[in-house]
């Protein structure tokens, strides 16, 4: 499976203003990630760094369907989700710098971004490990009669994990308001989908768990938004789970350590021809909703935001070593 299945977007398209907002978010993620790669090479960011470039439409489109009361559980490739959810770029960048003003106070790094105030329950770096946690958040909502959705992102690699199957079964069996979001970028690190799944049609796996599902072109942010809204609405309506597969592609290597030797160059080029940002720009320009001046203005805004984020990270204090073991246990409330 090396080419995307393009599904038509359903429902009505959002207005020009909203679409420009989507463009701005996707561009913010793109420029943020490009800067992160640069800072990684400069030695400012260390550890693992998994870039979201190419997949921006997924996080951006999905977040439109969520309310501030909903919860988000993400993976180790979660900068895009964090930014689209509204976690300030400065707090994300500072976290990657390992600074005290980082969104996890320098304890998590790139793979473990958290922002409880936005119900962003973090990046989970054990593939599949976030799904049971999301099931539990949904269970808590159901037991406390709260009508909200827990959105759980994971990759196609997670589908091979037992936790995927256990979690889908549990969520469906107990009727829990979980929105499972499979970001299928066709590779589990370096292993192609067809080489790790006997049945590579991921959306179909929901059938085995008596769960609704859909697949959508993850390069088309408007299609993603529409599909995510429908899925989230379905979950909100009856409190039962939904599996949405988002067919996407990462343009960069798995991580900064990855020489990317396992993907044909032509395949990467074919997907880059469907760059989600370019696709949205073409659509907007064709309808006269995006002028070169507006695009340049958005680029300037985004550039300023990324530069400010870097400045904030650079200015951040180092966490004192004396506090090394402070957050192992919750401090007793006074």
């Amino acid at each position, binding site marked *: 499976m090396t080419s995307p299945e393009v599904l038509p977007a359903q429902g009505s398209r959002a207005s020009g203003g909203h679409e420009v907002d989507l463009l701005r978010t996707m561009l913010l993620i793109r420029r943020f990630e490009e800067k992160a790669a640069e800072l990684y090479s400069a030695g400012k960011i260390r550890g693992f760094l998994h870039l979201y470039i190419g997949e921006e439409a997924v996080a951006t489109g999905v977040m439109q369907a969520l309310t501030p009361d909903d*919860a988000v559980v993400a993976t180790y490739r979660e900068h895009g989700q964090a930014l689209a959810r509204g976690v300030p770029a400065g707090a994300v960048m500072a976290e990657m710098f390992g600074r005290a003003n*980082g*969104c*996890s*106070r*320098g*304890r*998590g790094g790139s793979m*473990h971004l*958290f*922002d*409880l105030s936005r119900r962003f*329950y*973090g990046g*989970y770096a*054990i593939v599949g*490990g976030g*799904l*049971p*946690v*999301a*099931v*539990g*958040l*949904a*269970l*808590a*909502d159901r*037991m*406390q009669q709260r009508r909200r959705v*827990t959105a759980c992102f994971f990759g196609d690699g997670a589908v091979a994990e*037992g*936790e995927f199957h*256990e*979690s889908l*079964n*549990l969520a469906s*069996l*107990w009727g829990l308001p979980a929105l499972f979001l499979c970001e299928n970028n066709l590779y589990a690190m370096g292993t192609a989908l067809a080489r790790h799944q006997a049945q590579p049609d991921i959306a179909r796996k929901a059938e085995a768990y008596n769960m609704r599902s859909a697949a959508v072109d993850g390069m088309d942010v408007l299609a993603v938004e529409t599909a995510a809204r429908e899925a989230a609405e379905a979950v909100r309506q009856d409190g039962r789970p939904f599996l949405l597969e988002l067919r996407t592609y990462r343009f960069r290597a798995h991580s900064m350590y990855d020489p990317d030797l396992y993907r044909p160059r032509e395949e990467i080029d074919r997907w880059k021809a469907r760059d989600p940002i370019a696709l949205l720009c073409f659509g907007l320009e064709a309808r006269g909703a995006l002028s070169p001046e507006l695009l340049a203005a958005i680029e300037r805004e985004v550039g300023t935001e990324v530069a400010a984020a870097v400045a904030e990270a650079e200015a951040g204090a180092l966490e004192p070593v004396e506090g090394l*073991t*402070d*957050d*192992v*246990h*919750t401090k*007793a*409330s006074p």
Partner: protein
Amino acid sequence: MRTTYREAVRAAHREALRGDSRVFLMGEDVGRYGGAYAVSQGLLEEFGPERVRDAPLSESAFVGAGIGAALGGMRPIVEVMTVNFSLLALDQIVNNAATLHHMSGGQLSVPLVVRMATGAGRQLAAQHSHSLECWYAHVPGIRVLAPATLEDARGMLPSALRMPDPVLLFEHASLYTLEGDLPDDAGAVDLDRAAIRRAGRDLTLIAYGGSVGKALAAGAELARDGISAEVIDLRTLRPLDRRTLVDSVRRTRRAVVVDEAWRTGSLAGEISALLMEQAFYDLDAPVARVCSAEVPIPYAKQLEDAALPQVSTIVSAARTLLGSR
């Protein structure tokens, strides 16, 4: 009140479920079946299937769901049938429950209680008999408890439910039938201190869980020979109450650590190292260890008995430590 360990654990559940609507019990066969060890018998009838929740055989998913539910404002009690099965949920316990508070820079807390049976002695062979609690005691971010008495069977659960962080409770399966008296008003207990179950002068026997009874029996036998053994019940395996251990050994100058886990990489090894670090110059003899033989626990009774610490092996280790006495 005459009761058993099993009834004491059940009473603790009943009280918790009655007293706090956020508390629920979740696990394999905890509801209709009444619990693999019959701990939760009658709770489904009283509290219903939402709060006494039968889970499919998906240890990773339902332990992880316990973590998520705790993050979502609930106070879950998750029962895993045995410590051997908990290995299927090791990822959730070690990679998530233990790390989330730290990894989130203190934003998240996981007030989750996970209970499970542990230990050998019932001819259940090598996949139902191991004592792996020291693996969990290795991990920062979780508290590990081993109730060995009726008071602790009754009191550790309510205390654990007051903790803001994950707590693992290991119930030695041989203890469920332990009988005794418990005050009617028994409730929450301290979780920070080890307990001196028998005071003594000549040596300290350090044990926890299912080995505490054996250590006490060994102490009684040694007393008949005029040897005064102190018996310490660790109660909390992480964090260890170093002070009680070190103070006792400074007085008695000798220690035998009894641990049903394998010797290699055991908690007994940790305690031995701790005593060397903190009481080396007070020791009159090297710290001795009585642990399980380095073998998967076998089925046949005589083989299983030979694999486990026994009163006779504890007594023998104590006598060796005291030289010719």
